[in-house]
């Protein structure tokens, strides 16, 4: 491994070569842990909203979890709702404002554990909304317990010896499940653990919103994010854990795309 020498000041003063912020980000200060994957997902969302010129006609419905801070930090309209219920709430918003980009931002605990019912019915109705699930395989906010997506063998505070299917059953691959429903127009699973994955996930998000606005039907993007705190591993190992453990159970890629109606 090469090291950048830091013992002496650089010969040339550092200059900013690129703007990494998004115009929709209201503050760079946040409460999330170092190495958390959620902020990368927020940023992608902001970029897509800006690029598709949707910022001034979008309503986000957000659940409960660490990611919920996005509602405070981003310059978008948000409706914060009960744990798990965002797809139902988003349905009400969309039916009142059919021309608005309506989306949910939820964690795997919020969406797959508590709110699977609302998600599947929104998908079944072909509700023209976009549901985004930030999947880190744990309840991050409450300290790292097992969710419906915790992978087999994964240690959490409520599966201390690792998720054992004999005791806890198997993880639910939400994107694969949603893909099977006829009402879904677009289903993809991305990740934010390296630059390539981030770029790919942004494309998935963009496509999901484009298809929503074209009236194609229900669109869904699952994003694998890091939770080194909930996984009880060193921060730097988070991205590798996604690649070596998570993607075994949840392969990334585009799972379904229909032509607009």
């Amino acid at each position, binding site marked *: 491994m090469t090291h950048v020498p830091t013992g002496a000041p650089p010969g040339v003063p550092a200059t900013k070569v690129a703007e990494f912020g998004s115009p929709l980000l209201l503050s760079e200060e946040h409460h999330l842990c170092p190495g958390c994957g959620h902020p990368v997902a927020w940023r992608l969302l902001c970029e897509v909203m800006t690029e598709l010129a949707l910022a001034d*006609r979008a309503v986000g419905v957000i659940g409960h979890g660490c990611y919920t801070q996005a509602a405070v930090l981003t310059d978008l309209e948000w409706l914060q709702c009960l744990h798990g219920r965002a797809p*139902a709430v988003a349905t009400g918003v969309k039916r009142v404002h059919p021309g608005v980009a309506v989306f949910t931002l939820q964690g795997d605990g919020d969406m797959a554990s508590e709110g699977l019912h*609302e998600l599947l019915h929104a998908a079944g109705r072909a509700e023209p909304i976009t549901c985004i699930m930030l999947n880190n395989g744990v309840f991050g906010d409450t300290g790292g317990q097992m969710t419906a997506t915790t992978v087999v063998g994964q240690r959490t505070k409520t599966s201390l010896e690792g998720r054992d299917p004999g005791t806890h059953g198997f993880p639910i691959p939400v994107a694969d499940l949603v893909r099977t429903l006829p009402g879904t127009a677009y289903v993809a699973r991305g990740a934010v653990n390296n630059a390539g994955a981030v770029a790919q996930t942004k494309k998935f998000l963009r496509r999901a919103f484009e298809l929503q606005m074209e009236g194609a039907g229900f669109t869904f993007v699952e994003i694998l994010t890091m939770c080194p705190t909930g996984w009880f591993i060193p921060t730097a190992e988070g991205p590798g854990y996604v690649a070596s453990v998570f993607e075994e159970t949840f392969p990334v890629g585009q799972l379904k795309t229909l032509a607009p109606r």
Partner: protein
Amino acid sequence: MAVRLLQGSDALAEAAVTAGCRFFTGYPMLPFTGLLESMARRMPDAGGVCMNAASEIEAVNMTIGAAAAGARAGTGSCGQGIALMQEAVAEAALNEVPFVLFNMARGQQDYFQCTRGGGWGDYRTITLAPRDVVEAVEHTQLLFHLADTYRAPVILLGDYLIADTNMSVDVSPRDYGPLPAKDWALDGSTGGTGSSRQIWSWDIGKANRPGRGPDGQWKHIADKFAAVAEAEQRHESFMADDAEYLVVSWGTSGPFVDYVVEELRAEGVRIGSFRPISLWPFPEAALAEAAAGARRVLVYELNAGQMLDDVRLSIPDRSKIRFIGGVSIDYSGMRQGELLQASAIRAAVRRVIDEGD
């Protein structure tokens, strides 16, 4: 005046549409089902949406979405279904999303549920209990107005006798006066302006414009409901001025009690009745006044004594109070029970009078 002979459920649907309701959803459960079906028939022509939700939980959360987006919206169920909705009703009270919840109850077992909630937090729900279909139509229109006035979920507590009785009703729109602007309602348009909106029961606000925060928001909610408790008490009394015996009842029991009061008055008994129309806020002051000159206050309701608590809280001298109602189901399991008949009420009143108790 547009007077029409309508079945209760259809009359309520008509009243809701007239009041501007454009989003309605629910999950079938008798006796609420008729209202859901009626709304499904009525909404498309009115330019609204009626959805057959996949559960009561989904229904009430869809309603929150529609209401937060600025529409007049409603949903409903009865007892068990309302129990599933309670978490969302509490959330809507705390994040100030207004809608009307129609509880077409299976009798009078839902008094605690509607007036005490069962959700989380320091919230209350305005609850109106109509005596018949005519009053239910008025209450429906009034409730949409009160919901928007106070930015809060509100409840119509009806029952089978309201849902399934045909009555001539005036369904023309009522004007209850001006309302505050819905500038808080989300339509997506403020994103990217630096002043984007957010609805959250903690009212955290945005990084550039912090809101009240949970403490501030919940204090604001508590203050609001304290003001509502003062301003929105409603009641009706009948022959109560010189009453030695005052019978207190609510909802569709009221007309049965009034019938007995009339009968006994004709026989020389100084008796009157009092009916809270708003179950929350309970008309405490009016009841205290009506009961001041009475020797006995008789509480009649078809449950084990749920409103009885509010009567006790309203009347300084509790020793006057007697409970003459009771749990009552009939054998079909749906309709009001065998206690809901004038002869049964009359016998219960007579017992108190004759025993000099």
